[in-house]
């Protein structure tokens, strides 16, 4: 699928997949194995939890018990042999046999903006070029399934689609689980009346198109058709949590994060390729421990329930779950009981999509200052996502000015040990 070609993609996906996706409301992905891709594709979907601000690695995935840098939290045992995580994730600890950690990401940048750009796109910032984020890259390569947008960003902005074009940009959902006013006719406009309006509009547009025959107008008409298809799709229910069992909302936690995680599950079940769930507040220069405990209380039930549910439905095999942040935080605890920016080493969380559970890749040194074993570059993570999805990361795409760009920055290698 090439996102530039608006009219073509719309028709091809409608024809190929709409019936399946909407009738069964099932993981359509599993029915439509990717054809002709570079590596054996396992995953069909990605859920990315983006934790903005730089999440402390020592207080989450890489505890340092007994060291002066340990801080207030103790490590706890998990369902995976030999894997310990911070006590702020008690429920997740029971799911760790499904999950893996990378503890040796060697970042290059301690500035929020630049580091976020690098971790989200795999590239460094440069003038004259806007690199696409991970989600845009994935939906450029993996065609949309069903009516819903291929890429949905929840509770915050995903990076821009850059040279891949607007069609690869994320659909933004502000309040997870709440009805989205842009997906239905305005209040007071019944479906009958709305459809009548659409008929009048189509008639008017046909007249202009017949008069001028401009390509730009045709593209606008396809966009309207797409919008209408989405508005009338039963798949939209995935966005609204009023259709969800209240017990599940309780289990995931009735928070933006919990709702985001639950919605991510529902969206993936409906065929959405890439869901990015955003969360901020990790820039803990002061009161780091109080903040991280609160984050734990909110994230733990959501993430643990998501992994549990995906695993029991079998969807975890087809869904790569990833939790990333732009950098870690200093092992040194500052005078405000905070930790500052630390890019030299930090961790990330992965599960599903062919990732073998219960593993730890790489390590940081005893105080969590520098990578000790198996340093991983930020774009190695992007390469790993490609590997998981069967996307050839070395493929080149052309920017609008005909400059060839690799999907994954040169030098990015998948972390092969992650995969079964």
């Amino acid at each position: 699928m090439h996102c530039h070609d608006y009219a073509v993609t719309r028709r091809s996906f409608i024809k190929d997949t709409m019936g399946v996706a909407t009738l069964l409301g099932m993981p359509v992905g599993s029915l439509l194995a990717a054809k002709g891709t570079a590596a054996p594709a396992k995953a069909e979907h990605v859920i990315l939890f983006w934790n903005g601000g730089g999440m402390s690695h020592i207080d989450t995935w890489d505890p340092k018990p007994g060291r002066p840098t340990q801080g207030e939290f103790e490590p706890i045992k998990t369902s995976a042999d030999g894997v310990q995580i911070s006590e702020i994730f008690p429920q997740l600890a029971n799911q760790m046999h499904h999950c893996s950690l990378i503890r040796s990401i060697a970042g290059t940048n301690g500035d929020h903006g630049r580091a976020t750009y690098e971790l989200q796109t795999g590239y460094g910032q440069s003038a004259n070029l806007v690199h696409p984020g991970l989600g845009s890259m994935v939906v450029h390569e993996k065609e949309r399934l069903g009516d819903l947008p291929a890429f949905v960003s929840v509770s915050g902005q995903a990076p821009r689609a850059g040279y891949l074009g607007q069609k690869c940009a994320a659909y933004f959902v502000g309040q997870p689980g709440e009805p989205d006013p842009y997906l239905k006719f305005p209040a007071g406009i019944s479906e009958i009346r709305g459809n009548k309006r659409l008929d009048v509009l189509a008639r008017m547009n046909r007249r202009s198109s017949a008069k001028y025959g401009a390509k730009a107008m045709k593209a606008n008409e396809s966009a309207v058709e797409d919008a209408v298809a989405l508005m009338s799709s039963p798949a939209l229910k995935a966005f609204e949590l009023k259709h969800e069992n209240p017990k599940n909302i309780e289990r995931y936690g009735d928070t933006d994060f919990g709702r985001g995680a639950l919605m991510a599950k529902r969206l993936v079940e409906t065929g959405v390729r890439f869901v990015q769930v955003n969360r901020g507040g990790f820039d803990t220069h002061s009161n780091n421990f109080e903040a991280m405990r609160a984050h734990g209380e909110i994230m733990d039930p959501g993430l643990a329930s998501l992994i549990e549910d995906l695993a029991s439905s079998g969807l975890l095999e087809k869904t790569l779950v990833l939790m990333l942040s732009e950098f870690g935080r200093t092992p040194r605890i500052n005078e405000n009981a905070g930790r500052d920016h630390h890019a030299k080493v930090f961790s990330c969380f992965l599960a599903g999509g062919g990732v073998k559970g219960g593993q730890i890749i790489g390590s940081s040194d005893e105080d969590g200052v520098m990578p000790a074993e198996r340093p991983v570059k930020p774009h190695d993570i992007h390469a790993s996502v490609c590997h998981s999805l069967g996307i050839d990361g070395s493929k080149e795409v052309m920017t609008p000015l005909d400059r060839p760009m690799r999907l994954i920055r040169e030098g990015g290698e998948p972390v092969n040990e992650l995969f079964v």
Partner: protein
Amino acid sequence: MKLHSFSKVWREFVFSLLLLAFVGFLPSSVIGGSTIDKFLALDNQGKEGLVEAATLDDLGFLRKITIDLIGRIPTRKELDRYLKWPVTERRQSLVESLLEHERFSDRWTAFYADMLRIRTASTGGGALLAYVHKSIGDGKPFDELTRELISAQGRSDSIPALGFILNDNVDPMALTAATAQVFLGVRMQCAQCHDHPFDDWEQRQFYEMATFFGKTRRVESRLTRAIYTTEGKENAVLWPPERKKSPSRAPIDAKFPFLLEKFDDKPSHVSRLEAKRAAERLKLPSDEVVSLESLLDSTEATIEVSSRKKGPAGFDPDEDLKGQNAALDIKGDLYKASQMRAELAKLVTHPRNRYFAQNFVNRLWAELMGRGIYEPIDDYSEYQTINQPKTLDFLRKEFVALGYDLKDMIRLVVTSDAYGRGRLEAGHSAKIRIDSEMAFVAGSPRRMIGEALFDSIAVAGNLEDFKWPSGANLKTVRKRQRVYLDEEGKPKASPPAASLPVAGNPAMVPMASTASAGGYDLEKTIALDFNALLARDDVKEELEAMRMRSEQELEAMRMAAMQSQPTRRGKYKYVYVEEEVDDNPRYSSSYRMASPAAPDHFLRIFGQPGRDRLGDFRDFSASMRQALMMLNGKITHEAARVGSFERLHSLLVGKKKDFPAAIRRVYLGLFTREPTKEETKEGLAIIRDSESALEGMADLRWAMLNSHEFKFLP
């Protein structure tokens, strides 16, 4: 046959010689839009398969130029006034009235903001936007504005022009790339890291130009957190580049890599500029004369040397910097002015620097004509295809002669036949179509820019002011709210909401509307008060920065505020509360919003660039997001509904109802034209098939707002 075509070519050749010779001697008053057409005809000579599109009728012209010049469709009042003007003077009077319209500066600020990459969220960005707005209103020549932007020095809260160099963090490399690309339309950025593979720029030239910026430092006062710039002693730019691992790196001479035009006799456009500036000088109070004088005359001397390959001998930066400690800015603060950047600014804007004028006129041409004479508009090089070289040459010289005046230049372009033409109708091959559009004998299909679309919807729907009596639209809105829980899981007394900087801030006026009722957050924003932004009071940097924050940043601050308030932390649950609101929205102009808007805002969805990169232009492609925004958005819906204060209302209900008149009114208001008979018939049918005439009219208006005809320029 052959003979005939030969004589035709010959005739055209003689004609072009005469024209070229003639234009040089023309008094400036005679040069107008038709001169452009003559040069376009010369450039298009010999091109086959071009089809000329018909000239727009009077109303089509009114619509097109009103959208282009003041950034929205014409109002009914403007339309009536236009038609009252005598036919022969109509278009000319219209051009003059639009150039003087109060919205002219608003609309063209968006053009400058895209070009200069102004972001109100960055330090000094809001003040810079307001400053550019004021400069357009004051008719400040573009060369003067450019010099201010390149050479500004001082405190960010008292020197609004400083926003330009602050935008690139005062980094010499970034500023070099930006100066070349923004003001000269040349992409030098690749030469920062390597000799350019295709173009003629060498890495050393990039470093030589960067040296002009190398002494400027960005300083943040520890005490007041005020941000200012000053000149340091050492030049931060060293040659060779770090990665070449040369044993020694040292400062190099600043050199301007662009060759300035040489000529033995002063060409007429330079003489005309000098005469114009001399005349302006006479009108000015005496203390300003010095600076204007130095502008042309003293530059000549520097240029001579700098254009020599050896570089600007006689221009010793260290020598020039002596005694700068004494340089005071008017406010009494002590900042060292940047002699080097002042020098660079003169070179960049020099009348003999062809790139400067050429870049601006090509950008302006692209804005008004839908495509540049060369594209991308910031990528001129020897290897670039210039489709209309003679026209470009004429335009750039004329821009110099007109004293780099935006309005004069716009007047020149919009009075050409080329601008006044419509689009080709269907029935021509794709090749003929594209060739004709590229030759500017047919207009390109152009969608309004996002800001114009937003404001046009507001005008079309009479939403600039309340169109309902208060209380007519009471509705209950369901809102989700957080309630924080104590340790036993019981709701805590609600802590005071973190105070947000919006409240009580003079520069940030929340829009007087309930646009957010029902979650339509992507169409609302905060209007900036340009006057407050330029007020040089003793506003502290923090406060200034706060004013400029985008909604996203405000959100981050909200989050941070939540973090720092223990009572707002920890467990919470969501409850739904119902609130009664009077949903009677009105919309202020989108040109006055903080910009760029948040990434999912209406304006961004309709192509407003992020302005965080060079080469990031407006995106005119179609998307499903745009369709959803227009089909279901709040502003379209409200614009379609017929408010009881609208004149239209009385044509639909009550004793004076007159459906054909109502339809005519709507067509004139939304499409700037009379409806055809079929359209009137169609409109009547829509009204009759509806539950009420008001509903039917809302449906018609809604469809029209969403249509191609509304969004695309004639």
